[in-house]
Structure formats: structure tokens, C-alpha cells
């Protein structure tokens, strides 16, 4: 039974640690959901790519190092330990990237992946519409074939960072007579195409990380169709699997949060006196982060061994999103009256970015497929309960 990391894995970890130590910015960058922050994060992506660290598990020809999932997890651990900036191109590298590798033509892969890894093309996701959120099959934005182009009309919403991104990957209805999940197609659209209009949506935390994207007779060349025409649902489901599963939320992220939470408890001893349940809540978060790491390693090993994740990814999504929220709720409780103060307030003391994190964590059970939908999927596909 192989418990320890191999010599190669340890060497890889050391190399990553060294590079990150030398290159991670000394001060935290502004939020990527602001114009200035977005630009700063994009620069970081370029730097990562120059060091060969942008997407370590991708094939070398697409900008990666060709390492396996275990090394990717190792890299993520070092990444979070080093306090490195968030990945502004996460929709690209974690969602579209694997989808392209599964469904893209060689030409598409060569065209899009290296630029994605380099942060030259930052991607937004265009799936939801005002009338189609959880019920994604209800989408209405159309893309009708005209010669060697599709003509797109409609609207997408909740597109993270579309205000500053370069490209957007979407699902459109290509068959006018189709309904529900039939007749949909997955397409790649540049956000500077003629007829595209992006309008920022202000979030409850005051940032404009979201946007609506309007398509008015936007022309999309046929070679930007990903997968088959009419086969978009299948492609999208594959992407959704990536969203819930391994890559988008690596364990290191939550282990870092758990460590910070422990430190917060230590630094606020009067809080535990005020509320004796806080220590237990902190340790629960710590345990859950460990459990998530162990499960992820187990899943990664299974994938490397030729297995695959199916509906278990729904359990995964439920777990990380609710764990993250629970840890942040604990942080808010620990901070007590200071929890409502912004970090810039003098009376705040050292509140860190817990408030930001808490508000973002509230979105966790909603994005990447609501936890209600995930529970439906788990119940039906894993437990075999009747659809009804």
C-alpha cells in the first residue's frame, strides 16, 4: 500500500514551492472582480505561464507540463500555501479547457488552449439566461446557421467577469424546432464581436463581477462550434461535471481556509469565552477540509487508474460549497461585532477578508448548479430514487 509521495512527486513539490516563493506577489492583488484587479490577475496568469506553471496537468503542447492529477493537487497545495492570487481565468482553464480536450478538434485545441494557459484569452461562461437558471434546458438564445456562420440572438446572464474577459463559451439553441435539451449547441464567441453588448451587474458586495451579455445578430464562424451541432447538451454536461468535481475547487483552498480559521480562533480567545461552541465549529471545519482532501486524492487516484467520476461529482459539489459556507459562518461568529466592519475601518483590527469570503461562500450552494439540483441528481443517479 503506497502511502507516501514518490521521490518525483516530492521533487515536483519542491520545485513549485521554490518558484512560487520567488514569484508570488508580496501583497494581495485587488479583487479580480474589479477592473484594476482583473488586469493585475491577468498579468499574474502571464507570469505563471512564463514559468510553465499555468496548467501543470495539461499536455505540454497546450501549455502544460503533462503531470498527473496527483501532481496537480500537490501544485495546488503549494499554490495556496504561498498565498498566490486567484485564477482569473478559472472558467477557461478549469471548465472550458478540459471540455475542449474532450470534444475539440485538434485545430481548436491548438488555437485556444495555449492562449488560455497564457492568460491572453480570459474566458467567461454564458449559460444562464433570465428564464433559464437551474432549468438550463429552457434556454432561448438562438444561433441559426447562415452559410459558414451562425447568427446569434438573445441574452445570457450571470457571466462572471464578462465585462473584462476576452471570450465567452455558450450554449445556444441551433434547431428552431427543438425543445428542452435537444437542438442545443456549444459555441465559442469573442466578446468583442460585432453585436455583442456586455452590461455589468452589481453584486451584493458592491463588486461588478457579473454581467449580462446581449447578442444582436452576432456572427460566429462554424469552426467555433464545439462538438456537434445539436449535441451541445452533452458537451455542457461534461463541463458541468468538471465544475462540480475535482479541478475547480481543489482541497488546498479549503485547507488554507481551515488553517486561517484556527489562527482566527487562537487570535480571538475572548470569542471562545463568549461562545463555547466556536472551538468545536472550528475543528469541524478543519476535519471537513481534511476529508475533502482525502476524498479528492482518492478520486484522483481512481481517475489515474482509468476510472471516471460520474454523479459522485454532485456529492462533491454539495460538500465543498456547504463546508466553505460553514467555515465562513464560523469566522463571522468568531469576529462577533467586528464581522460587519470593512477591512478599511480602523476599528476593524485584523479582520482579514473574512467578510468578503463569507459573502462569496453564500453563492457556493447556488453556482455550478444549485445544491438542490445536485441533491436531485445524487438521489436519482446515485441512489436510484425514482425521477417522478
Amino acid at each position, binding site marked *: *500500500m*503506497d*502511502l*507516501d*509521495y514518490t521521490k518525483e512527486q516530492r521533487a515536483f*513539490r519542491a520545485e513549485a514551492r521554490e518558484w512560487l516563493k520567488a514569484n508570488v506577489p508580496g501583497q494581495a492583488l485587488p479583487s479580480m472582480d474589479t477592473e484594476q484587479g482583473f488586469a493585475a490577475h491577468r498579468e499574474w496568469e502571464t507570469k505563471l505561464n512564463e514559468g510553465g506553471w499555468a496548467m501543470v496537468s495539461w499536455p505540454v503542447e497546450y501549455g502544460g507540463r503533462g503531470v498527473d492529477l*496527483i501532481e496537480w493537487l500537490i501544485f495546488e*497545495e503549494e499554490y495556496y*500555501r504561498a498565498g498566490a492570487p486567484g485564477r482569473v481565468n478559472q472558467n477557461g482553464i478549469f471548465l472550458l479547457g478540459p471540455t475542449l480536450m474532450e470534444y475539440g478538434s485538434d485545430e481548436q485545441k491548438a488555437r485556444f488552449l495555449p492562449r488560455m494557459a497564457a492568460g491572453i484569452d480570459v474566458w467567461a461562461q454564458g449559460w444562464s439566461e433570465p428564464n433559464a437558471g437551474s432549468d438550463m434546458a429552457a434556454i432561448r438564445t438562438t444561433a441559426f446557421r447562415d452559410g459558414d456562420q451562425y447568427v446569434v440572438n438573445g441574452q445570457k446572464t450571470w457571466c462572471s467577469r464578462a465585462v473584462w474577459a476576452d471570450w465567452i463559451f455558450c450554449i445556444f439553441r441551433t434547431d428552431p424546432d427543438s425543445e428542452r435539451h435537444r437542438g442545443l449547441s456549444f459555441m465559442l464567441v469573442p466578446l468583442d464581436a460585432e453585436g455583442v453588448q456586455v452590461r455589468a451587474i452589481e453584486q451584493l458586495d458592491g463588486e461588478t463581477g457579473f454581467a449580462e451579455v446581449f447578442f444582436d445578430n452576432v456572427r460566429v464562424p462554424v469552426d467555433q462550434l464545439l462538438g456537434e451541432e445539436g449535441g451541445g447538451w452533452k458537451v455542457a454536461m461534461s463541463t458541468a461535471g468538471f465544475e462540480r468535481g475535482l479541478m475547480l475547487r481543489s482541497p488546498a483552498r479549503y485547507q488554507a481556509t481551515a*488553517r486561517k480559521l*484556527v*489562527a482566527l*480562533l*487562537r487570535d480571538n480567545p475572548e470569542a471562545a469565552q463568549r461562545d463555547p461552541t466556536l*472551538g*468545536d465549529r*472550528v*475543528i*469541524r471545519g*478543519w*476535519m*471537513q477540509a*481534511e*476529508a*475533502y*482532501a*482525502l*476524498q479528492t*486524492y*482518492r478520486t484522483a*487516484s*481512481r481517475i489515474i*487508474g482509468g476510472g471516471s467520476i460520474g454523479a*459522485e461529482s*454532485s*456529492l462533491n459539489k*454539495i*460538500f465543498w460549497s456547504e463546508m466553505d459556507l460553514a467555515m465562513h459562518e464560523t469566522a463571522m461568529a468568531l469576529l462577533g461585532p467586528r464581522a460587519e466592519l470593512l477591512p478599511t475601518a480602523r476599528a476593524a483590527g485584523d479582520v482579514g477578508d473574512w467578510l468578503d469570503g463569507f459573502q462569496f461562500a453564500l453563492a457556493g450552494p447556488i453556482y455550478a448548479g444549485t445544491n*438542490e439540483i*445536485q*441533491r*436531485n441528481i*445524487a*438521489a*436519482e443517479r*446515485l*441512489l*436510484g*430514487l*425514482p*425521477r*417522478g
Partner: protein
Amino acid sequence: MFRDSVRALLERDCTADVLRELWAGESGRSDGLWSGLAELGLTGLLLAEEHGGLGMAEVDLVLALEESGRACLPEPLVETVLAAAPLLETLAAGGGTPASVADKWLPLVAAGEARLAIEHPANPCVADAHVAELLLLLAADGSLHAVERAQVELIRQPCNDAARRLFTVDWKPGDDSLLAKAAGATRLLDAAFDRAAFGCAAQQLGIGQKLIDLAVDYAGQREQFGRAIGSFQAVKHHLATAQVAVEFARPVVYRAACSLATGHTDAGLHVSQAKAMADEAALLAARTSLQVHGGIGYTWEVDLHAWMKRAWALEMTWGGSAWHRGRLADAVLADIDNKPREGQLQLQGVN
């Protein structure tokens, strides 16, 4: 696969009907079942070959333990195989009375001819003292003794789980029964505690999953409002939530198995995590399964209560989940600097 053989044996010889027969019986135990497990190598799995064992480790036992939970096995698997027998084996190399006790009894355990009971400060009663040929008991001065059943008086402590048999023990320590004096006894018992807590945690995984499966089965069949109740979203969500808990407790239990097997420095902490998470998952599964069953789940006639009561009992055996979280908290809160993780994470081979 070993797990499959254990499952097959238990599915054949430890059915719900068998359980109910055993409940009604005097001892609540089946020598046939116990020897069946011994024949598969289960009772001697952790023991050295020289004692008739297989010389294997906790990591090889974990799936079989899950199966024992799944079957609601009433036998003292944890007490004998994980707690007491390896404790005796630790003494075998030391010579004297303890070694001769080990050399006499361990082969019998491996052969399925003897069960062991063990007293521990964490547990108010001694489980299965009535079927144990040998009992490891704690004297008032903290010393550990090995006493044959004929030499003790047992007072049965009726309890909720119809399969569990708990006792307090009246006995007199003597020089000839001494295994270890207080300091040594503490060390031995601490190690036994970790192994046993792990064993219960593994059983809780099986119990939790079985509770979910019972509910899924019921919900798929029971119809109301013209459809199976499992087609209603609330029911689906309850069960999915329980499945998440069991699913994520699983790798934590497996990691504890690996840590015990390799003698990892943090094995105790890993065990505590495993017990805490598996206990809570099993309790949630119990609560959920009862709710999904509705009124019928509240009856003696339906098998559900057997697993629920086992989950409740095991939660408080070998340290409750809160105690285990406390042990973890003491370690984590004392030492939270950014120490890098070394080793320990690949779990291939435990699937």
C-alpha cells in the same frame, strides 16, 4: 476480494431473521457465525503467523469491518480482534505470565475458538463478557489482568440495542492474573482504544450506508399520492444529504486504517477524525432513514431500529464523537503553523 467473501458469509448467515433469533436467545451470539468469520481469517487477521494469524494490518481489515456494520453483526469483532488480541500479542515478546497467556489464547482466537472481552476506562461496561473465554480487566490500582470467565461474576446491564450484551464484572485481581502494572497498562489500553475506535468508525460506515439503503428501498416502493414517495424532492434531498456525510467519512476512515497499519505518529488523531465523522454520518443516516420510513419505521417489526440502535450505541463506545473532536482540537489548536504535509495521502488499494 476479501470484502466480498465477508459480505457473502454475512448475507447468508447474518440475515435480519437470524438477528431476531439471536436477540431472543440467551447469549445473543452464534458460535457458528464466529467460526465462519474465523475461517475467513478475520479473527486472526492482525495476529502474527506464529499465533495462527495472517500477519496483516488494519488496512486489510477495514472493508470487512464495514461489512460487519452493514450486517449489524452482533459478535465482539472490535473487542476481540482489534482491542484485546493485538494487546495480548504486544505482551507475547516480553516473557513471563503475559507471554504465556498470549501464547495460549491467541491461537484459539485465530482459530475462532475463543472470544475476548476487554475493560477500558472509556466504556462504563464490558461488552460480551458473557461469551468471552478470557477477559482483560482493570484493577482499582490501574493494573491490567487476564481472567477466565469462570473466575468472575457478571452482572448484566440491559441496554437499548437488542443485540448488545453489556456487563459489569465482579472479580478479584491476583498476582497470577497480572498482565501489566498501571503505567504499562495505560500504554497498552491507549493503543487498544485507538484500534477499537477505528473499528467502530469502520462499522459505522457500513451501518450508515445500510440505513440509507433501507430508506432508498422503502421510498422506492411505498406509494402515496399516486407515486413512490422517493420521487418527492424532500425525500430525495434528505437521503442525498445523508449520502454526502457517509461518502466523505469514508476516506477519513480508510486513512486511519493506513495510519494505524504504518504506525504513523498522528494515527490517534486520524482515528479521532475517523470516529467523529463516521459517528455523525451514521447518526444522520439513522435520523434520516427513520424520517423517510415514516410511521412504519417506528415499529419493532421493521428491521430499521436494529441499525439505528447500533449507530447510537457505537457513537458513545470507545469515545464519543465530541470527545474525539476534542482530542483533535487539542492537537490542532496547539500547532497551527504552516507545516507542510509530508506523505500520507494516496489511498490506492483501499477501494
